[in-house]
Structure formats: structure tokens, C-alpha cells
């Protein structure tokens, strides 16, 4: 049911082969026309900058995320930071962590690194698997399609949060944790993208230029690479853009539960868990990672919506006046979420 509906959607910029330059320029123009998306893009750019230049920022501050500062902690009072507002000072811009005295600013900016890095890597894995499975399913024979479609259904039915929680528990802890978290999320939650790619490929397959390529004796692989991938770009980018914030939430949730990124590597989710009992002595210990998480997910979501509008204005305008309720229902269903 959903496949038919998805296939009937306009393919956006993908269906008509436009010169690459003009397509990209059109995309930027449409993206710039949306003020909310623009603000979100600026916020995301800032976050990426912070994540990339985390060592630089902490060098300016003169701190690092892992050094303990026992002298800044009042052990007589159970380990609360010495000084007002959780130990905010010229040396520690956002104060220090209770009990350990690690610098909060440094942990926060390095946390951005983990958060964005894991989410992007997971998205990459999801897109790779989803695109390969989707195209193979659409171009392969009936049996291949049946098999891969069933597999996709099964993957979609696996509850992401519970499955990744369980998987992360059984892998030896010697494996680098952030890489592992990204892999696990990527390996479990590629079902949605595979479904979309399959539907879109089935649509593209019917188009004249693909048929022409087929008739002129091109192999499936060459057709997929040269003729189909450009047409798949729009829906894949749209979906991937909305997967990133979802993956950020999942990473934070897993780290919150203590199975994601493990100390001493800082992660926002992990900071939120640790901050739980300190909210009175050092409220910023809780509010900073929670706020960072909120702003990041919000900015990425708004940007993702903007990208969708820019790539498929027709769908977006239909959405504004209220469109395909079935489509909406199915997309909501297909999107993985760690929000339980």
C-alpha cells in the first residue's frame, strides 16, 4: 500500500534530468527562501564548527574534557563544585562537573563532536544499506525482490531502541564505543530508506531514458550508477536529513541508559544521567547538555523540513494546505524514533 503511494509521488527534481549545476542552484535558492530553515542551517553550521574545532575551543579556554580537578570540589559537602553557580570562573567558563571537577565547557563541546559524529556516521550506514537494498530489490528478479522486501519489513518491525540496547550489551567493550553505536543504529534502522529507494527506483525504471539505457544493452549495475542514482538523490537526501536528528536522539538515549558512549568520552545523554542528582547544586550540569541536545535536534529537524521543501516544493505545498494523509501516516510510521 505504502509503496504504491510513495511511487505515485512526484519525484521532485529527480524525474526530469536537469543539468547538475542548475539543480543545485535551484535547491539553494529554494532553501534560502525559507527563513526558518536558514536560521536552522546557521545553527547547524555553528554546531558543526564547534564539533570540528572542539580542541581549539578548549585550548582557548585552557582546559580539556578528561582532567579531574579535585581541588575545585568540596568533598565535605558530597562533591559539589566550590564557588557559585557550579564553579563558574574565568578558568572554567561553564563551571565544573560535581564529584570529578572535570571542565563542563570542554565536555559539552566534545559532546557535540560525539553527538554529531555518531549521528552522521549512523546516517551514512543507513543510507548505504538502504540504497543498495532498495535498488537491488527494484532491479533484481521477483525472488530477490520478495526476499529483500520481506527482510526490509522485518527490519522495520524491530524496535530500534530495544534492539540497539540489546546489541550494544553483547559486544565486547574493547570495541571503540562511538563507532559501535553508529554501526548498531545504522544496521538496525535502514528499513525506511530501503522502502523509499525501492519505490522510487520502480518509478524511475519506467522512464524512457532508463528504458533506453536498458535497450542499448547496459547492465543493471551501470544503469543503477549512471541513470538511477541521480534520480534517487532528492528522496534519499530528504529522508537522510530527517534521520540525522532522529539518530542524535537515539545516541543520547542509549548513552543516557548507560549502554551508548561510555566515560571518559563525553556524551550529552551520559551527562544528563550523571547530572540527575546534582540539579540543586549545579543546575547547569543538567540544563547545558539537555539544552544542547534540544537545540541540535530542533535545528536539524527544521533544516530537514527545509531541505524537503526545497527538493520537492510540490509535496511541501501540498503539505501546507494539508496533503496525503496516508502518506503522512506512513512516513511517521516509517521514521525510527527513540522516543519511548
Amino acid at each position: 500500500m505504502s509503496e504504491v503511494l510513495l511511487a505515485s509521488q512526484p519525484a521532485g527534481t529527480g524525474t526530469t534530468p536537469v543539468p547538475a549545476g542548475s539543480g543545485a542552484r535551484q535547491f539553494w535558492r529554494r532553501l534560502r527562501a525559507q527563513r526558518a530553515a536558514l536560521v536552522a542551517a546557521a545553527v547547524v553550521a555553528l554546531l558543526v564548527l564547534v564539533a570540528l574545532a572542539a580542541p581549539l575551543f578548549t585550548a582557548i579556554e585552557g582546559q580539556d574534557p578528561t582532567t579531574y580537578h579535585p581541588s575545585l570540589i568540596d568533598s565535605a559537602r558530597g562533591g559539589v563544585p566550590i564557588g557559585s553557580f557550579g564553579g563558574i570562573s574565568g578558568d572554567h567558563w561553564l563551571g565544573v562537573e560535581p564529584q570529578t571537577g572535570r571542565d563542563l565547557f570542554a565536555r559539552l563541546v566534545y559532546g557535540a563532536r560525539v553527538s554529531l559524529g555518531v549521528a552522521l556516521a549512523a546516517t551514512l550506514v543507513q543510507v548505504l544499506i538502504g540504497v543498495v537494498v532498495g535498488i537491488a530489490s527494484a532491479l533484481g528478479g521477483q525472488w530477490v525482490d520478495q526476499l529483500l522486501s520481506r527482510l526490509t519489513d522485518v527490519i522495520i518491525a524491530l524496535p530500534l531502541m530495544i534492539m540497539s540496547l540489546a546489541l550494544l550489551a553483547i559486544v565486547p567493550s574493547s570495541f571503540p564505543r562511538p563507532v559501535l553505536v553508529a554501526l548498531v543504529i545504522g544496521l538496525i534502522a535502514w528499513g525506511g530508506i530501503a522502502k523509499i529507494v525501492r519505490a522510487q527506483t520502480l518509478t524511475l525504471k519506467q522512464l524512457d531514458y532508463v528504458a533506453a539505457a536498458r535497450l542499448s544493452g547496459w547492465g543493471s549495475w551501470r544503469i543503477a550508477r549512471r541513470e538511477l542514482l541521480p534520480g534517487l538523490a532528492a528522496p534519499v537526501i530528504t529522508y537522510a536529513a530527517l534521520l540525522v536528528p532522529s539518530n542524535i536522539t537515539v545516541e543520547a538515549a542509549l548513552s543516557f541508559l548507560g549502554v551508548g558512549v561510555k566515560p571518559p568520552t563525553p556524551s550529552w545523554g551520559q551527562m544528563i544521567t550523571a547530572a540527575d542528582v546534582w540539579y540543586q547544586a549545579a543546575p547547569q550540569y543538567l540544563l547545558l547538555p539537555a539544552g544542547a541536545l534540544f537545540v541540535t535536534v530542533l535545528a536539524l529537524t527544521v533544516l530537514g523540513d527545509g531541505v524537503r521543501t526545497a527538493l520537492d516544493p510540490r509535496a511541501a505545498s501540498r503539505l501546507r494546505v494539508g496533503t496525503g494523509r496516508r502518506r503522512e501516516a506512513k512516513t511517521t510510521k516509517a521514521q525510527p524514533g527513540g522516543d519511548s
Partner: protein
Amino acid sequence: MNLSGFGGFVARRVVGAIVTLFAISVIIYVVFYVAPGNVAQITCGPRCSPAQVHQVAEQLRLDDPLYLRYWHFLEGIFVGQDYSTGTSVQHCSAPCLGLSYQTDQQVTELILAKLPVTGSLALGAMVLWLLIGVGTGVLSAWRRGRPTERVLTGLTLAGTATPVFVIGLILMIVVCGQLELLPFPQYVPFADDPEQWAWNLLLPWLSLALIESAKYARLTRASMLETLAEDHVRTFRAYGVGERSIIGRHALRGAVAPLIALNATDFGSMFGGAVLTETLFGLPGLGHELVEAVKVVDLPVVVGMVLVTGFFVVIANAVADVLYAVADRRVVLV
């Protein structure tokens, strides 16, 4: 939609769900009992001697080929199994998901014992998220283009961007810690004291509902706006039907089918354990149990939990599709 077509649709959907369930059981079994290396070592713990590890491997029949072990696993689910736990033999009747490595308790019993907690959480949260979500959606469709809609859209967006453990934690700190309006949640079974049951679950319900309702608000608003743009609504307007009646009776009706479908799916996946909410509030439900089992790598419990959750999701998806088809007759049954 003729009846035989509908019956066929339901039958196909049920068969599909059963096939999916089998596939899930195979995947989960293979992933958890094969991939992570030495199961016996993990089970036994890091301080086990090689002899002890060998004994555990024998107990778990790890020397048998994989298909045979999976077959035993299935056998346990359908006809039950006997387990020797050192001195005595314990019978585990169908559906048997094995025994916990840690406590020798039957996994099925364990799950059944936790189910009421998760069920209470999911049920109450569902009522709230439907009320909040659909209410918000109706209000923003009614007030479309006005400041009210903008505020509601902003709130909805904020809801989608907030993780449930953040809102739950903040609610708990403010309501229980600072204002001291409620005690910190502690699960009280409904049978013991319905009033305490509800008071203690209020915050977990609210946290889940606030986050979930964002999806429902978006969906309600989108479907209502779609209906409002349709020709027959214009005709109603031309005949002088009031806005209130158009919103309440006609536009809302269009949102019912997708709402039912989404709700069935959500409720199903929540029934398998709202891991984050249960962990945050310390509610002893399925999700909480899973986290505990994961910490000590209690594989039978983990596999059982994941399987049961997958079961709920698959059932819920099938129910969602059927309900959708019932509620919206325009759906083409494929």
C-alpha cells in the same frame, strides 16, 4: 469493498505477520547466540574457570549445530521444555522462552509479571497523548493562519525535538523535587490502590504523552487541512454549514483513519517496553527489566524481551493496517 476481498486482505495480513514473526525470531536468535563470540564465557562471567565454561556450554547445548539449537528454542515456545538446573529439573511449559541465567526464573513468567506495569504506563499515556495531540491538531486546523496556530506549531515542533528522558527528568525535578506537588513516582499496582496507582503514574504518563502528542497534532492538523481543501467542504460552506460543524464533524472524520493506524502502531511498540520512561522513573516494567538484563548480559531474558517486543510491534502493525482499511473505505486493498 466487498466482504470476501476484505476477508482475503485480513488473511493475507495475518499470514504476513506470522512470516515476519518467524523471520524476526530467526534473526534475533542468530544475532544474539552466534555473533558475540563465546556465549558460555559471557554467561558464566569473566572469572569462570575453563571447566566451568565448558559445563555451561554443555548446559546450553552449545556443541549442537545452530539449527538444532534454534529448533529447541522453537520447541520451547510451542510445546515447552525441561531444564535441569543443577540438582532439580524444572519444567517450563509453552510458551517457554528459556530460563534466566541469573536467577533461573522462567523468562515467560518474568515477562508476564512485568506486563501490567508497562501496560498501565502505555494505556494511560495513550489516553493523554490522544487528548493532547488530537486537541492541539483540531485547534490549529480551526485557527489556521492565526497566531494560535503558529504558537501551537512551534510547541509541536519543540515536542518533536525533546527527548522523553529530558522532559521527564525536568518534570520530575520541578514537580517532585522543587514544588513537592507529587512524591517521586513509585509503582503501585492498580489492584492494590487505584488512586495511588494513578498519582504515581501521572508524571510518566505526562512525559510520554507530551512527546508523543506532537506526532498526533501534526497528523491531525495535516489530514484536517486536507479535508478542508476538498470540494465537498466548499459545498457545505456554500449551503451555510457552520465552521464549527465543518471542523468537528467533517474535517475531523477524515483524520480518524490515519490516527487509528498510527495509534495502534505506537501503542504496540510502547507495550513492548517504554525503556527510557521506565528507567527514568524507576517503573519495574518490561523496558526496565530489559535494561537490567542487558547490564548483566542475561541472554535468555534479552532475547525473550526483544522477541516479545517484536511480537507486539508486528501484531500492532497488522492491526493498524486492518483498522485503517476498516476506517477508510477508499483504501485499495493490496
